[in-house]
């Protein structure tokens, strides 16, 4: 059944790609710019409609052919438009006729001081230029137009990201502008091999997407594969890097993400330096990193910015937290319903005295409390901050207390599930798969106790072993084991001790320059 489903899915994908390719080819046929300004004006209005933000300025000149300037209000800088473009045009008009160069060359030379200038001879390209904020200058009787990059719009300045916060470390985060993001990476890595390859993806959004890698460090195969996948994307809309992620990931139906994302330039830079590739997407501060392995879920920026001896404990806590949050409810269920003898007597007495006279079984009450927490979390996430605090207080404290007092769910269950949920936040990247794994484990435990937990674990582990991220096994460097890379898995060794780049990603031994002792 799974196979059939996969085949069906593949067919759908192939079909879609094929159709899109055909459409793309049709589009590719360039239409020339009409030389008559009136015709051009009509064509432009026809293409862009009577949008209120579409500005057409016709400047009739007495000693020169009429000039038509087209731009979008709000995207093009008004000051530059008035001062440089219109100013130059009128200045040209007032210059003596003799000995002056052609108008187009004159304007080009003049504008080169303030912005980038391109010559366009294709109407569709001209329209796209207008829509991306450039001002396009058409001249009567000419088939070429000039586009001036005078885009200017409101941008957020880099501030501290909400995800992946660190106690010690840089406070800046990526922003929505791809140019600023690019500059942030350039500032971190001053290396001529740092490459950005720009793509424009999405027929309607024309989103700028950058494939970023360090040539020579990143494996050629990985870069080629990612480039191929990016080029294969045929879609209308790319609004966020998550859209891209869904097109390029290896295991689209997996619980686990095989493409990572980060909001932090330092994290992105460190991944690039390890030989990974990053994908920057215009309009979002989230940068994708590839390949993304399971262990990266458990690594945090703090591990590298604090002393290695103490960050070892931090990482251990995250490992323990991950295991606890997945297994705790299931173990609680299987121990209380199947293996009572394994509970120490005094603990059994405690659980027994709070457990009795509760209307629902442990399985149902565990699911109920888990659902309750999930609902509270969802509500608190979606609401604005002042209201979300009320929701979490009413939901967590008031409802939780009332449920226990009313005797709907035993105190022990609430304690177990609360610990489970809290420990879940130790590994925020894995929070969503964990929620589902927990339920699988609970079901297994409810059927055959510890054996059920074992069986579910085997299935999940086998699945994790089977998936890849851009050709790299998801569980590496644990499985397959890599003796060199394991230094950054269970322990985080001091930075100077991790002297080689991860061989599982670079696929060969690349020696890093050692920070200590040269």
């Amino acid at each position: 059944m799974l196979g059939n489903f996969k085949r069906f899915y593949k067919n759908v994908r192939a079909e879609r790609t094929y159709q899109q390719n055909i459409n793309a080819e049709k589009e590719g046929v360039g239409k020339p710019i009409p030389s008559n300004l009136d015709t051009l004006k009509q064509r432009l209005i026809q293409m862009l409609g009577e949008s209120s933000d579409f500005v057409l300025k016709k400047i009739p000149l007495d000693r020169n052919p009429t000039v038509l300037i087209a731009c979008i209000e709000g995207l093009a800088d008004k000051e530059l438009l008035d001062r440089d473009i219109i100013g130059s045009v009128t200045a040209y008009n007032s210059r003596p006729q003799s000995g002056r160069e052609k108008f187009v060359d004159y304007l080009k030379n003049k504008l080169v001081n303030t912005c980038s200038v391109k010559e366009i001879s294709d109407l569709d390209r001209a329209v796209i230029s207008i829509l991306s904020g450039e001002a396009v200058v058409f001249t009567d009787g000419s088939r070429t137009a000039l586009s001036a990059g005078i885009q200017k719009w409101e941008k957020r300045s880099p501030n501290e990201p909400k995800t992946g916060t660190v106690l010690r470390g840089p406070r800046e985060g990526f922003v929505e502008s791809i140019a600023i993001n690019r500059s942030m990476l350039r500032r971190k890595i001053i290396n001529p091999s740092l490459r950005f390859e720009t793509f424009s993806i999405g027929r309607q959004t024309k989103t700028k997407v950058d494939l970023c890698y360090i040539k020579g460090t990143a494996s050629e195969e990985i870069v080629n594969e990612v480039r191929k996948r990016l080029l294969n994307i045929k879609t209308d809309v790319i609004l966020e890097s998550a859209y891209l992620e869904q097109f390029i990931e290896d295991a689209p139906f997996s619980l686990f993400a095989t493409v990572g994302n980060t909001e932090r330039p330092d994290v992105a830079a460190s991944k690039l330096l390890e030989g990974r590739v990053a994908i920057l997407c215009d309009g979002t501060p989230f940068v994708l990193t590839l390949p993304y392995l399971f262990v990266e879920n458990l690594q945090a920026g703090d591990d590298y910015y604090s002393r290695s001896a103490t960050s070892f404990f931090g990482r251990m806590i995250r490992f323990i937290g991950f295991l606890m949050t997945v297994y705790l409810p299931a173990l609680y269920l299987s121990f209380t319903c199947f293996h009572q003898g394994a509970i120490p007597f005094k603990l059994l007495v405690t659980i027994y005295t709070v457990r009795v006279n509760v209307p629902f079984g442990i399985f149902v009450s565990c699911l109920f409390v888990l659902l309750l927490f999930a609902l509270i979390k969802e509500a608190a996430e979606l609401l604005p901050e002042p209201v979300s605090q009320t929701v979490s207080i009413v939901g967590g404290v008031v409802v939780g207390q009332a449920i226990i007092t009313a005797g709907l769910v035993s105190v022990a269950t609430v304690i177990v599930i609360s610990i489970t949920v809290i420990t879940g936040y130790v590994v925020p990247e894995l929070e969503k798969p964990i929620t589902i794994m927990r339920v699988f484990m609970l079901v297994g435990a409810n059927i055959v106790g510890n054996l059920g937990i074992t069986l579910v674990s085997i299935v999940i582990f086998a699945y994790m072993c089977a998936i890849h991220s851009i050709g790299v096994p998801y569980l590496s460097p644990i499985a397959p084991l890599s003796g060199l890379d394991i230094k950054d898995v269970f322990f985080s060794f001091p930075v100077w001790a991790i002297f080689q780049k991860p061989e599982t990603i670079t696929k060969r031994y690349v020696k890093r320059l050692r920070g200590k002792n040269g």
Partner: protein
Amino acid sequence: MMKKAACLLLILALSLPLCGCWNNFDLDSLAIVVGVGFDRADDGRMQVTAEVLSPNPDQENQSGGSGGKRGSLVYTVEGATFFEAIRNFIAKTGKRLYWQDVQLVVVGEDYAKEGVTDLLDYFQRDQQANLKSDLIIAKGMTAQEVLKAQPNIDQTAAAQINNSLVGTVTSGETVKAMLFDIVRQNSALKPCIVVGAIEKDKAESDAAESPDSKDSPELMGMVVKGSAILKNFKLAGYLSPEETRGFLFADDKIQSTIISVENPVEKNKLVSIKLTEASGKIKADIVENKPKLTVEIEAKGAVGDQQGGGDLTAPEHIGALTAAVENEIRKEIASAASVSQKESGSDIFCFSEDIYQNDYNKWREMAQNWDDVYAQSDIGIRVNFLIKRPGMITEPVEKKE
């Protein structure tokens, strides 16, 4: 791919029946047994008393009396066999009995005289039962009386008795024997084991029988003291606390205890010696076709406290103290030996094993009437004691005249 997945699922599914019998019992469908008692009912049927944890200790207070809140309920049922009796429990409690955490097994005196093999059978046969529970004999009482007694420190009678059993064991005045230890006697040549005993405290039981006492006596009126000899799994006699300690010395089970002897400087005053190390060895030789039995004790200790004055570190006083302690230990062992020889005729020290190992032919000759041979044998006792330290001070504080 599909084949592989199917294979994996099949293997996982096949592992399901491997775990044997399993079932999903929520905790609230169980009655957790903490103590179980065995008696013989008047009509000869088996009477089983079980102390189960009260599911709601705050609201139910079975005895309704003053004192601590009891966290347990006590049920007594009868049945032709033990298994039949516990089946009857379900009708009474509405819950399955849960045997894994039984803390204490109490056997009434009358029942113990008939033998405990029948009850051991269930505990060995049932997959749930726990052979690590301690067994105790109710001296001069029924097991029901013991379990019904009102606990005043712990929540359950079983836990309180168990705790005081553990406490008394450290002073060497009783013996802690698990069901497992008793079962293990099955492979002994002459099964004989000493187990703990609980009895009514003379001083306090008088007070308990005053007019305002309740139906069930408080557990304060009972004391875990001394031990009982199970010969061939039947109750054969009791050892007093001192005799028990004597037995434990010989059995190499004493870790630390306190022995009080007369102060060699001031008569009628006592000095307590705290034993820090003790090892006991038994030896059985055959001399002129007669067994010559020996108990050897090596012990070390320190002065624990001193009544009256005097410098105990003087050599002559150390000598006197040592002799007194050795004498005391010898006396205790001798009285334990005499009880085992004369009163119960049971070889609690297991000399038989020693003869069996050293002189098998002689053992075969004696095996038939070993009880008589043992009762008539001499038991030599050799004690070697050494005082290591006077404690933190040498001389006590004295009144200045």
